């Protein structure tokens, strides 16, 4: 990591600075600024107390037209025509519906054909657009930064604040430039890039910074891949992650439901082209990685920074210099039921989960389907779940026949939602069982009490399902991996 704090200042602006400047409602020296919010996304889990707070104070939602609500965290991924047995979840769904109805907020409820995980459907429907400020009561709001937006997660009190004022009180963050140079090798995905970054800078490495990603390996990613990278930026502690918009961004957005058409679209593209950081723009910190040196990643511990290349072994606590790190590693290995020195590829897996706002987009499903086609889930695997991020993605995948490939190979094909990433519905990882999961957090208990999560890319998860343990996907015929 290079600290650039002493670099000469110029008038060149970063992408972050440009979006910030365009959204300042009020500035006062020595005080945080009031910034305007262009899109407020809301889900059932973190919003009921915010709406209740508004009601208690007799306040109204200022801009219901800029607010979008969705049911995603607790929804069933099986048959939604069945009665909801989880009474608490049911009450939350009802509360969200009532709150939206009373305040005039558009709602994607669990039966909408466009329902899906909040960070999947925002981009998919073109609600997310370059240059915007986007917030949601959910840390993975950083996902939307892939479009060159300033997007970050907030707590419920701030959800209430945005509902009431369409603004947030914010101090400017520091900036971090993460440059991933070179060409991404086959079998190495966006997920591996972001896990390698978190492994390098640590889970607190980005704290109080907004990250902008750059370099050939980032530029060559699809929008789906960029979303994966920005999604997990919060796992490095950063406030937000961003990628400057380019032709890949514009091509993705054209024709989506909330994106303007014709001349209006051309005008928008012209504006969006002004967003990328100016040459010579100054960042507080720069981090550099070489894509060629990144291997498929597997987490072995209880936070996303406890990660290694697939060819490595589970580390020994004494490999770490810092006493706190030693203790944390010891505790993590105990929780994970792993012995130091075990080759990662020798770790057996009980369940496989391909889904979440990190890795459930059409590209992810295509890559996994491509790998498993003609193969079968190993007999030792208790469950292998495919949970598309949205019903739109589900429909697209079915049109391409991916569902058939998955079910023929022994996977379960489910309906859209957060599912086993957070286990708020019935998709819970049982105690002491081990998952290969494409989600974003391997914290203790994240997928279920005493469950053991290993974070990997979709193709690595698919390969683990076939083999029954982790494997290096680069060992397979090149045509099996993208």
């Amino acid at each position: 990591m290079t600290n650039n704090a002493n670099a000469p200042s110029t008038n060149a602006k970063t992408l972050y600075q440009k979006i910030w400047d365009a959204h300042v409602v009020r500035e006062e020296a020595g005080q945080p600024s009031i910034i305007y919010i262009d899109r407020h996304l809301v889900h059932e889990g973190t919003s009921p107390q915010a709406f209740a707070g508004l009601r208690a104070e007799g306040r109204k939602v200022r801009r219901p037209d800029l607010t979008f609500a969705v049911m995603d965290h607790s929804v069933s991924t099986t048959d939604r025509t069945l009665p909801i047995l989880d009474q608490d979840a049911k009450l939350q769904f009802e509360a969200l519906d009532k709150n939206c109805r009373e305040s005039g907020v558009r709602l994607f409820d669990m039966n909408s054909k466009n329902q899906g995980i909040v960070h999947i459907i925002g981009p998919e429907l073109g609600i997310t657009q370059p240059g915007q400020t986007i917030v949601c009561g959910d840390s993975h709001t950083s996902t939307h930064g892939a479009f060159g937006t300033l997007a970050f997660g907030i707590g419920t009190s701030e959800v209430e604040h945005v509902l009431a004022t369409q603004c947030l009180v914010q101090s400017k963050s520091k900036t971090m430039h993460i440059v991933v140079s070179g060409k991404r090798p086959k079998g190495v995905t966006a997920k591996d890039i972001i896990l390698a970054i978190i492994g390098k800078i640590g889970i607190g490495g980005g704290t109080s910074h907004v990250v902008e990603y750059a370099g050939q390996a980032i530029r060559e990613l699809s929008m789906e891949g960029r979303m994966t990278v920005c999604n997990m930026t919060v796992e490095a502690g950063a406030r937000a992650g961003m990628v400057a918009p380019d032709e890949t961004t514009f091509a993705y957005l054209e024709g989506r439901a909330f994106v303007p058409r014709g001349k209006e679209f051309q005008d928008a593209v012209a504006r969006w082209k002004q967003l990328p950081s100016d040459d010579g723009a100054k960042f507080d910190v720069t981090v550099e990685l070489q894509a060629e040196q990144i291997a498929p990643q597997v987490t072995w511990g209880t936070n996303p920074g406890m990660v290694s290349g697939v060819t490595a072994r589970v580390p020994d606590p004494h490999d770490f210099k810092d006493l706190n790190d030693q203790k944390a590693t010891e505790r993590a290995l105990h929780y994970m039921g792993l012995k130091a020195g075990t080759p990662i590829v020798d770790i057996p897996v009980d369940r496989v989960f391909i889904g979440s706002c990190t890795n459930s987009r059409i590209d992810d499903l295509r890559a996994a389907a491509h790998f498993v086609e003609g193969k079968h889930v190993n007999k030792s695997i208790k469950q292998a779940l495919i949970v598309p991020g949205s019903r739109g993605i589900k429909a697209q995948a079915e049109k391409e026949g991916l569902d058939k490939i998955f079910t023929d190979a022994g996977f379960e094909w489910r309906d859209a939602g957060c599912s086993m990433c957070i286990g708020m519905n019935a998709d819970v990882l049982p105690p002491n069982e081990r998952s290969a999961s494409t989600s974003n957090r391997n914290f203790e208990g994240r997928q279920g009490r005493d469950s053991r999560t290993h974070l990997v890319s979709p193709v690595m998860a698919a390969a683990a399902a076939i083999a029954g343990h982790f494997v290096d996907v680069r060992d397979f015929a090149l045509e099996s991996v993208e």
Partner: protein
Amino acid sequence: MKPFITHTGLVLPLDRVNVDTDQMVPKQFLKALTREGFGRILFYDWRYLPGEKPNPEFIMNFPQYKGASVLLTRANFGCGSSREHAPWAIGDYGFRVILAPSYADIFYNNCFKNGILPAELSETQIEELFQRAEKYPGYQLRIDLPNQTVSDNEGLTYKFEIAPSRKEVLLEGLDDIATTLKHEPEITSYEKTHAATATMFDQVDVKNYSAGAP
């Protein structure tokens, strides 16, 4: 919100780095509709064995820490999920102050919305406090926000830094929304020049409750 001026209380040393908010409030408790009552489930999986029997090995269940109101812990406290249920649980349990070398951004921000002071001290200072908490039974700390100090009865005093605007929020117990709404004309004027809209050009399957929107 209850203002925070000074606080003196028993210290509970939680000797772990990178404590994430999933540990403070596990997912099954995110289905609530209110902000109340989360203290009972704070650090649920660590604090209770299956069947909700207190885990005798977890520090919060040690009798000598009953009534603790100052949480002493390690770096990057509150990482992970944005769930404000975490500070709700910390506050409802009775903690008014957290002392750590660093905090995750969203959690740090959420503390101020709930009258909890997350004070930042250096790694060395935190280490010294851990040693004192072990050495002196019933170790108490006094936190003085106006003077930005943490002190004990053994002659130790540390200064801590806090942004003046954050300090004011706690000292005054300010309601952020009311403060922002004082600038309502500026918001309206911004909206006139910055025409944020969200027009649907293709029909999507959404409950359009927004018929009356501007």
